Every structure is written in C-alpha cells, then in structure tokens.
C-alpha cells in the first residue's frame, strides 16, 4: 500500500510524457465540446452562422444573422455552458480530492452529505425568500455542517473503516432528506416548492450571467487551491506519520482541503441544484486513464468533469421541448458506468 499513493484506489501510473499528451488531448476535446454547446440547441441556428457570430466578437463582420440568434447564443447558451464547465469540473475535482483524502473509493460529495446539506441550506433560504447571496452562504454552511457530521461519526466510534464512513454518510443523508421533507412540507405548494424541486433535481435552465459573476470566482478560487495542493494530497494519503516527517501540517492541510472541496460543491449546488454521480464517477474514470497520482489525476478530473457536464447539458436541453432535470441523465449514465468501473477494476472495498 505504501507504494500505491492513493490507498486502495487502483489504477496504474503512467509516464509524464503520456500524461501530457492525454491532458492536451482532453483540453482540446473540452474546447471542442464548449463550442459545440454554443452551436447546438433547439433554436435552429445554421452552424456557419454560429461560427460567424462568435468570430464577430473579435473581427468586424457584417451581420448576416438575426439579433435573436446572437442573443440565443450569448444570453441562453453561453451562461449555461460556462456554468456546466464550472460545475462539472468543480464536482469532479472535489470528488477526487475527497476520495483521495479519505482513501476511500466510495466517497463523493453525495455520499458525504455535502450536496444534500447544501440543498437544505439553499432551500431554507428560498423558504424565507432570501436573495442569491444568502442562498449561497446558507448552502455552504449546510454543506460544511453535513460533512462535519459525516466525518465526526467514525471518529466518535474510533473506527476509521470505509464501511463506517459509508454508514455515517447514509445517516447524514437520511437526516438531511428528512429536513428537506419538513421544508418542502412547510413550503407554499404553488410558489416556493416548485423552486425547491428544481433545486433538488438539478437544472441549468435558469442560469444567467449575473449568477456567474459572484459564484464563478468562488469555484475558480477553491478549485485553484485544490489543484495547488495536489502534491500534499499525495503525501496525506501516505499516512499521518509519514506526512509529518515530510514536513506537512496534516491538520491544516486536511482542513483547507475539506473547506475548498465543500465550497466547490456548495457553489455548484447554488448554480444548478444537486447533480448526482459526477463527483463519484468522473474521478474513477480519471484514475482509469492516468492512474491514482493526484498530481495528474486532479487536472484530468477537472477537464473530464467539464466535458461530461457540458455533454449532459446539451442532452438535457436538446432532447425534448421540456427540459430534463440533470440528475435524471447523470443518474441514468452514471449508475451503469460506475457498475462497469467496479467490474473492470475489481475494486476491493473493505
């Protein structure tokens, strides 16, 4: 286990040259998907026109398109595509960080209760008709409270096994869903409830540029810190004693990682509600490609998560004239995929 830098999280390490190639390939793919997302949608904009509309931002081109086309791309598709990139990347990153820190392949923002805690916080704010800033603050507090309880239970039991953490996650998840139930029960069926259901299922349809202005910095900043800490994450997973001898302040680093990963998840919840599976499945996919070394895994997980989320959002808004909630699609794809990963990796979950 000492040589395996992420505990029992399997996957083979790859050479730096190969990693660089994979990473660049993924970034190119991500850029491609990003522009595809601007060009695809139910409002029919000829592909050539959408390219021109984008180019017209930089070069002076005489418009051959309508103002509506331009507005559809910049007011409807651009904000939700940026949001999808931030949320997908953020959830995958926080999932990868949690998994490696808890040395536990089952951990994800969902299992730790962060998502449901954040959802409870956000719903409380909606119930009292608070503004978006308060919604985000309460979502963050809800997330932190939930993850603290989940982590505290195994400590109280003096049992740090995977099973204990999973069990604790189930307890917190159950508690949060009950609280969610109370809030929904109290909420006005015609008004607040509809908004909460929207939060609980996840959707990007109401994301506007203004929402991004104050949530994007949160996601970028905490994501940046996590990526900076990727080497320390490796050290942490060697065990406390070894980390200390390598000069890492274990408690401080742990605290910073938990705060950042929770902030990421809570910000994602603020933008689009709870979206399951991304934080669990994408890090595994990343490990399958570049191995468990966090120095390579974290950047790859961010890009993979972004690609995944953008593709999911394109599907959600293009399939039918009624938008599909994101969690439905991520669940339909994520659950079978996770099963496939389990078989493929023959993960020993103890």
């Amino acid at each position, binding site marked *: 286990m000492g040589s395996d830098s992420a505990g029992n999280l399997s996957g083979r390490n790859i050479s730096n040259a190969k990693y660089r190639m994979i990473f660049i390939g993924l970034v190119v793919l991500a850029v491609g998907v990003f522009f595809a997302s601007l060009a695809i949608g*139910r*409002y029919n904009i000829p592909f050539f026109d959408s390219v021109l509309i984008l180019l017209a931002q930089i070069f002076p081109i005489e418009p051959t398109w309508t103002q509506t086309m331009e*507005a559809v791309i910049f007011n409807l598709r651009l904000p939700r595509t940026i949001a999808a990139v931030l949320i997908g990347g953020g959830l995958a990153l926080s999932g990868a960080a949690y998994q490696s820190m808890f040395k536990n392949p089952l951990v994800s923002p969902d299992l730790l209760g962060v998502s449901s805690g954040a959802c409870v916080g956000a719903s409380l704010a909606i119930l009292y008709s608070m503004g978006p800033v308060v919604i985000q603050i309460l979502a963050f507090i809800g997330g932190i409270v939930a993850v603290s309880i989940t982590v505290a239970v195994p400590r109280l039991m003096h049992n740090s096994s995977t099973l204990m953490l999973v069990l604790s996650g189930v307890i917190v998840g159950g508690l949060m869903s009950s609280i969610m139930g109370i809030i929904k029960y109290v909420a006005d069926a015609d008004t607040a409830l509809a*908004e909460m259901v929207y939060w609980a299922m996840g959707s990007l*349809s109401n994301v506007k540029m203004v929402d991004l202005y104050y949530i994007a910095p949160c996601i970028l900043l905490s994501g940046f810190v996590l990526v900076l800490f990727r080497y320390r994450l490796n050290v942490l997973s060697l065990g406390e004693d070894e980390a200390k001898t390598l000069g890492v302040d274990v408690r401080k680093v742990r605290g910073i990682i938990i705060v950042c990963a929770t902030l990421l998840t809570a910000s994602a919840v603020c933008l689009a509600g709870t979206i399951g599976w991304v934080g669990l499945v994408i890090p595994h996919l990343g490990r399958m490609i570049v191995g468990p070394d966090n120095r390579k895994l974290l950047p790859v997980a961010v890009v993979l998560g972004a690609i995944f989320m953008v593709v999911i959002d394109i599907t959600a808004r293009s399939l039918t004239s*009624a*938008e599909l909630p994101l969690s439905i699609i991520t669940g339909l794809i994520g659950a079978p995929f996770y099963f496939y990963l389990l078989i493929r990796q023959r993960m020993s979950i103890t």
Partner: protein
Amino acid sequence: MMKKSLLILVSLFLILTISVAGCIDVSQPAANRTITDMNGVDVVIPAEINTVVNLWPASNSVMLCMGAGDKLIGTTSFTQKLYWSQKVYPGIVDVPVATDNVEELLVLSPDLIITPQTATAEKLCEAGLPAVCLMFSDYETMKQAFTILGEAFGGEYVEKAAKWSDLVDENTARVQAAVGNIPEDEKPVVYYIQGQSNQGLYATFSANSIMEDWTEIGGGIFASTLLNLSGSTASAEDVLALNPDIVIIGGPYQHELYEELMAADEWKEINAVKNGQVYTNPNGLFPWERFGMESAMQILFAASVIHPDLFEVDMVSEVQDFYKEFVGIDLTKEEAQNMINGYGPNGEDYT
C-alpha cells in the same frame, strides 16, 4: 408485585377501550339531504350550510366571489393573503387556516368540507365528516363544480351558479361571433407565462390546459399545444423559435416578469415584443387565466388582446357588472382598472 400491577393496568385499559367503543355514536349528524360530488359520490349534508372548511385556494375564491365568504370557518393562507379577498370579505383574515387533519376537523365539525382531492374526501367521509371532492380544471368542470356548490348552499347560490354557466356560454358566443371565422393559418401564436412564483420566462402551462381553451376561443393558437408540452416548463429555445405573436403573463409576479422579458435581448426581435403585444393578465380573487369565477371574463380579455382589431370590449364596465351581479359589491372604475392591471384594489403590488 410488578406483575400484579401490570395485570391491573392492562385489564383497566381493556375495560376502558371496550366501554369507550360502546359509547361512540356512529350515526350521522342531523342531516336530511344528499349531494353528489365531482366523483359521483353521494355525501350526506345538513339542510342548511352555515359553516364551511375549504382546503383549496381556487374554490375559496369561488365562495368569496359568490358572496359566501361569511360561511368560511377554515380557509387557506393563499386566500387570506390576496388583497381582493380582503376587499370582498374583510373577515377573511380572521378565519383560521385549516388542514386536512381528521381530528381537528372533527373538533371544528363544519357543515361542509371542500377539497380538491379524491383521497382526502374519502378519508374524511370515512371519519363521518361531510366532505365533497370539488376539483375543476377547465370551463366544463367549473360549470359542474359551481352547480354542486350552488346546490349545497341553496337559494340565491343556485341561481348564481346557473347564471355563471350562462355567462361563460354568452361570452364564448360574443367572442366567437367576432373571431370565429379566422382561418387556421392566420391565427396568432399565443405564449403564456405563469407567474405564480418567479420561475423565469419559460414557466408556462401544458397543452390541454384551460389556457389552451381561452386562447382557442379567442382565435389564437396556444404555444404549448404547438410544442406538445406535457409539463409546465418549456425550453427557452423552442419558445423563441416559435416566435410568438402575443405573450400573456399571469400571476402575482407578472410585473416583474414583464420587465424581465422586455429587457431581454433574445426577445427584442420576437413578434410579440416588436409589435407591442406583451400583456399582463388581470388578477382578482384568483388569477383570471387559471380558474375561479372571474375566468368567465378571461374569455373576453383574451380575445381583446389576441385580436384587438376584431374584438373590442370595455373591460372596466365588464368587471363592474360582474362584481355587482355575483359578489354583490360596487367597484369604482379605478378599482376595476387595478384588477385588470393585476394589482390589488388600491393598486397594491404582490411582489
């Protein structure tokens, strides 16, 4: 010793239960007539209905509109908050908010309980409470439901219910005479935004809703019908691609949503905005475009905004006549205009 006291306790409990069971009076309260509710269930109710618990905002508004607000001894918080409820029946703020809790309702013991849910009506009837299921979602079911309500209350209310059914038919005929001959391909597309809460510009109603009914009577094509929409949220891009000719925004958040739509770049070149045909919907005891008695006037209002050139109507005097006839109060021109503009009687805004 423990065992003995336990035995005494258990036998005491048993004796008590048996004697209580024997005491319960399972017969109906003094009742001498039955009415049949929307599900065809016969419900026994007292000869005279003086106290009503109403669990649904829409039918609360109907009672207030019939001038039967003083019968309410249990209402909904939504009903209490509406400025027009308070105008029509000021006592509404003192009526307690009721729930479907059987024991609380047994304590209240009203002459009639009104609920929109079959399961709730069944549950309450089993407990011996006079509960009727009164659900309505379009003009036909409203005619039925109001007739049942009229029968239950008796007297002038029977006439009011009949008058209301006639009014719907009359207004439909009036509108049809003006716009009935428009060929299908010349009918404008009407998009409706539901502003019960502010869920953005793409919260609407499904095809086959009452919105489809008044749009079609008024000589328009309902956007959700074209989109085959079964849910209540439309895809933004689909709506824009339809290029609606008319937009009608309803509910308490209509003014906020109106501002948002007029400021949005993606709407600037849409027909409705270009031609100045974005409207807020009248909102009185209930949003007219949804249900309630005022929905009879929605037929006129919708036609007047869908085909302003073909159908002209003085909505202010329509509202005044309607309120005099059904509610029994005189509204000033200003108050009527405030309702048409979606505000409270004195111009209060809901947001």
